[in-house]
């Protein structure tokens, strides 16, 4: 299992289209990916668009990732990457 934090840096936050990108990415891996807000402990599976939207993660929010499964290394890096690139919006 891999754990770590990522920051939402794109100006619009984790909005619908960004969340959809994350879902698409998460579905490429067999690992279970859980995204959690550190401030209020709300969490969501990275393959659930409605769960991700309910996090209401605006820009600047720090999210905790927990990735578990056979391809956890690749999955963790890919998710970290999409956050650090601001979902291609910056």
């Amino acid at each position, binding site marked *: 299992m891999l754990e770590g934090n990522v920051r939402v840096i794109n100006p619009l936050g984790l909005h*619908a*289209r960004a969340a*959809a990108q994350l*879902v698409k990415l998460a579905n490429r891996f067999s690992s279970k990916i859980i995204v959690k807000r550190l401030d209020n402990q709300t969490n969501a599976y990275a393959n*659930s*668009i*409605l769960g991700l*939207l*309910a996090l*209401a993660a605006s820009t600047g929010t720090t999210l905790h990732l927990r990735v578990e499964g056979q391809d956890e290394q690749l999955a963790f890096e890919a998710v970290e990457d999409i956050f650090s690139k601001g979902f291609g919006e910056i």
Partner: protein
Amino acid sequence: MGINMKKVGGVIVSHGQVANELLSAAENVVGGLSHITAVSIGWHDDVEIAKEEIARAIKHVSQGVGVLLMTDMFGGTPTNISAMFLKENEVEIVTGVNLPMVIKLASHTGDTTLSELAKDVEEQGKQAIYRTGALLEPQKIKKDA
């Protein structure tokens, strides 16, 4: 999720263009949705014509495992006409359609039955309504303190 797994189909039925626009918004978020279609009933449309349109739409999206009709408002004409198609294990109706409900139906994996999915979509529709200001209230109190 098997590639050949059959999916429950969906038809959004509304007054005016709401149905088409809801579907197009959902497609913008999650991509093309071949198992969901929209029927917009004009304000002056004949009931028989509307009924035929819904029948065609159901046939169009059906993969043999049921079709969920999502209508705009309980008691409205789109719902009342849709109700004529209610049939156990074949056609279910959930009213008060909103975008999260369409996305819920769009992203189901194909291993849920029609009635389970109808319940999930109903639940999702209710849960996805927030009075957003209420989410911020605890933080406001903290700031004041």
